[in-house]
């Protein structure tokens, strides 16, 4: 392919096309916006991670002796808010989705490039409000903002925290809108729906949830802010309001939100498993349908967070039943990934190690969801560390591993450099070991009865040994997370230059240079092949250097 050449003789890419801060802050190139997001979400990941480390350090001993009670309550609140709203929800869609979606469908950008930039600025504005909250004394409502505690009984920065999430929510809504329209309207000739990579299907399903669910969160947080400022009485029983109304409204978004977080990761895993098994995915239709099924049924289960909240017996039974329905498509996906490996030709590069980790940990997290969906068990373990372990298995063991796997897989495409494979594998191993040591003991702690959000447990010293194990794991996990930051940065200068297709992978993104030029394709591609056409790609994955 003839490519544009700069004066210096270098090939023109989206990275060197223009220099200077303005060219980044005013870019409408989806790839540059993806990098803007990458820097910002990494920043928030470290803040959320720092809070987590402080929490785990406090819990080393039963007594509350590291920080004060109010400080601890702020730490777990802001850990949750930062990680959920400023890291997990945007992470894959805003970084990998933004970068890859247009390329994977053969387009030169998203449908609305300027709205894409606006999304980032909304995210940054929300992030700034969150930082303001953190630096000015914090907020201690719990990430769930339950009323009337948050509206009537706390003197911390509830309003700015609520507004931070409110503003960031619009970033999510607009990204969802952009992806849906792009997928419908900008596919290259021949790229039919049934030829789309599952990464695209996953982002499509995610975007539907973002579009439909986030506005409910926005309204709910606005109501909390208004209740706090004007004492309207919507959620305050003393004024005739209902605290459970808040919970229904909050969870109506926040349950589908967990699918916003995991579906993109499932898309990544499909891409990686197919590439490193050299096989098309087993059961493409089932996989695509499962993604859509999770998105739809995910809207029908929210009150499984409220089984002991005071809802009616019969409502609880209906939500328990529906929660089991939503588990089925997830199980199907695990079976299909496993079957994709059958009779493959498998290699164990870093992305594949993360994919293995995902399959194992997501399976465990998903199975423990079945415990929680069972009413009789949930009464005992809800609001304990069992729930904390469950959602961290899915969000950290699942989602963050998928994100890291994706970052390694597409790093050559994004940066034009290879990361050091040996360090990549070491980090993946550390993450896997550290993760399990951190969170497996918490299942046991939960069943033993340790409630969540407890600063001090000196009344129950029997909880200590498991807490110590958990904190030990957290330190290993932290090392596993810091390593990629270091070697990705290192690789930008010293990494081996990457070829167009270092993995001999299928997909349009691997048919253009690494890094791509600004408009992705020299000419609009015409697609005549199915997704994951590994039957036509004869080569294996090259051996790592």
């Amino acid at each position, binding site marked *: 392919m003839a490519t544009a050449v700069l004066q210096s003789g270098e090939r023109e890419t989206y990275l060197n096309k223009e220099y200077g801060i303005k060219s980044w802050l005013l870019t409408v190139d989806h790839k540059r916006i993806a990098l803007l997001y990458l820097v910002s979400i990494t920043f928030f990941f470290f803040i959320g991670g720092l809070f987590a480390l402080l929490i785990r350090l406090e819990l080393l001993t039963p007594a509350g002796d590291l920080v004060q009670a109010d400080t601890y*309550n702020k730490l777990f609140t802001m850990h949750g808010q930062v990680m959920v709203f400023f890291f997990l929800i945007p992470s894959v869609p805003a970084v990998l989705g933004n970068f890859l979606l247009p390329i994977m469908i053969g387009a030169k950008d998203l449908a609305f490039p300027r709205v894409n930039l606006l999304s980032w600025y909304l995210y940054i504005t929300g992030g700034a409000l969150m930082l303001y909250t953190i630096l000015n004394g914090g907020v201690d409502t719990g990430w769930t903002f339950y009323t009337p505690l948050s509206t009537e009984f706390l003197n911390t920065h509830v309003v700015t925290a609520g507004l931070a999430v409110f503003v960031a929510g619009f970033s999510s809504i607009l990204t969802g809108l952009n992806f849906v329209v792009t997928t419908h309207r900008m596919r290259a000739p021949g790229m039919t729906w049934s030829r789309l990579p599952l990464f695209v299907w996953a982002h499509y399903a995610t975007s539907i949830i973002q579009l439909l669910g986030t506005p409910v969160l926005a309204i709910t947080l606005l109501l909390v802010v208004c209740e706090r400022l004007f004492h309207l009485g919507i959620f305050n029983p003393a004024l005739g309001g209902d605290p459970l109304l808040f919970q229904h409204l909050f969870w109506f978004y926040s349950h589908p939100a967990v699918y916003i977080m995991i579906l993109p990761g499932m898309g990544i895993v499909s891409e990686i498993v197919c590439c490193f098994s050299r096989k098309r995915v087993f059961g493409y239709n089932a996989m695509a349908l499962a993604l859509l099924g999770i998105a739809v049924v995910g809207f029908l289960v929210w*009150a499984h967070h409220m089984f002991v*909240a005071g809802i009616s017996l019969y409502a609880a*039974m209906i939500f328990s039943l529906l929660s089991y329905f939503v588990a089925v498509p997830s199980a199907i996906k695990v079976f299909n990934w496993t079957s994709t490996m059958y009779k*493959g030709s498998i290699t164990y590069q870093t992305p594949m190690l993360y994919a293995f980790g995902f399959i194992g940990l997501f399976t465990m997290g998903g199975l423990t969801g079945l415990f929680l969906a069972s*009413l009789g068990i949930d009464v005992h373990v809800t609001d304990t560390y069992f729930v904390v372990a469950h959602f961290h298995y899915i969000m950290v063991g699942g989602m963050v591993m998928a994100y890291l796997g994706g970052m390694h897989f597409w790093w050559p495409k994004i940066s034009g450099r290879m990361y050091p494979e040996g360090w990549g594998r070491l980090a993946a191993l550390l993450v896997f070991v550290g993760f399990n040591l951190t969170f497996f003991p918490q299942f046991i702690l939960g069943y033993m009865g340790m409630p969540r959000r407890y600063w001090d447990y000196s009344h129950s010293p029997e909880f200590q040994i498991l807490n110590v194990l958990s904190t030990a794991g957290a330190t290993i996990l932290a090392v596993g997370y810091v390593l990629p930051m270091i070697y990705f940065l290192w690789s930008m200068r010293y990494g081996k230059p990457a070829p167009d297709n270092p993995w001999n992978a299928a997909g349009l993104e691997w048919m253009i240079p690494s890094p791509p030029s600004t408009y992705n394709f020299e000419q609009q591609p015409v697609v005549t092949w199915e997704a994951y056409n590994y039957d036509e790609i004869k080569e294996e994955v090259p051996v790592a250097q």
Partner: protein
Amino acid sequence: MFQTMPLWPERASTMANNVDALYIFLLVVSAMMSIAIFTMVLVFAVRFRKRPGHHAEQIQGSHALEITWTFIPFCIFMVFFGWGALLYFKERKPPKDATEVYTVAKQWMWKFEHIEGQREINELHVPIGRDVEMIMTSQDVIHSFYVPAFRIKQDVLPGRYTTAWFHATKPGTYHLFCAEYCGTMHSGMVGSVVVMEPKDYEAWMGGGGSQPLAVTGEKLFTELGCITCHRSDTQGRGPNLVGIFGKPVLLEDGRTVVADENYVRESILQPAAKIVSGFKPIMPTFQGQISDEQLNALVAYVKSLSQPATGQTGGRHMATATP
């Protein structure tokens, strides 16, 4: 004193055995499913690793497999659902004639009042072998009454009652935790449930000398003037309260509701919310004028008007709240 097994708390109630049985069942099935998947992934990863001369075999899929591994997990999940739902059904329906303990939770303590009048703070004494129903409300934010050894938990809400019940089976002292984040000293809102042999419990009770809750309520009923309208004949400006507890009440807008604890409480705090058919909306509100403990005493008194003379246990138990 506080003994816990390494993997689960002691089983000190009838519910605990049932919950642990379901838990172990789930553990076994989950372990089997995980081992099956992990083994397959491991075996495939090694057996189908890249080797010279071997190529991947492209397989589209298999309808038969998809259907099988949709249907079988679904059936297993339905067993999990059914068993769990059965347990929950038992858990949410207190037995008739359970002994009541009125509970008021506040930041950051538990206040208990036995029907016989004893008050306790953060410690709850109960006898073995008796059904005990906690009728609970909060003075401020949402709390949650959690006794791991009994495997029960119920959120405690401001503005209404929620209930939990248990049947203790083993003497001992067990943790009571608040399980819904409620502010600064959430982790300090802990106490204990002391389960005693019946004779020890009688001895403990005898040392009190406090009057039964319903009698306190009767006194309040007179002091606050309720008796002027709610006479025990048909001449009063308000409905006669004798015998109404636990029975359906026809309201003037045509609805019928059951007169449970929440109904009585609401009628005192927001009388205009539900007007009994045939009466005028003239009752003044007592919101802000009486404490939660006084409300509990009044509810206990109204309940006692529907019972045969002993006035000890509750009659119809309250329907669970609105979704």
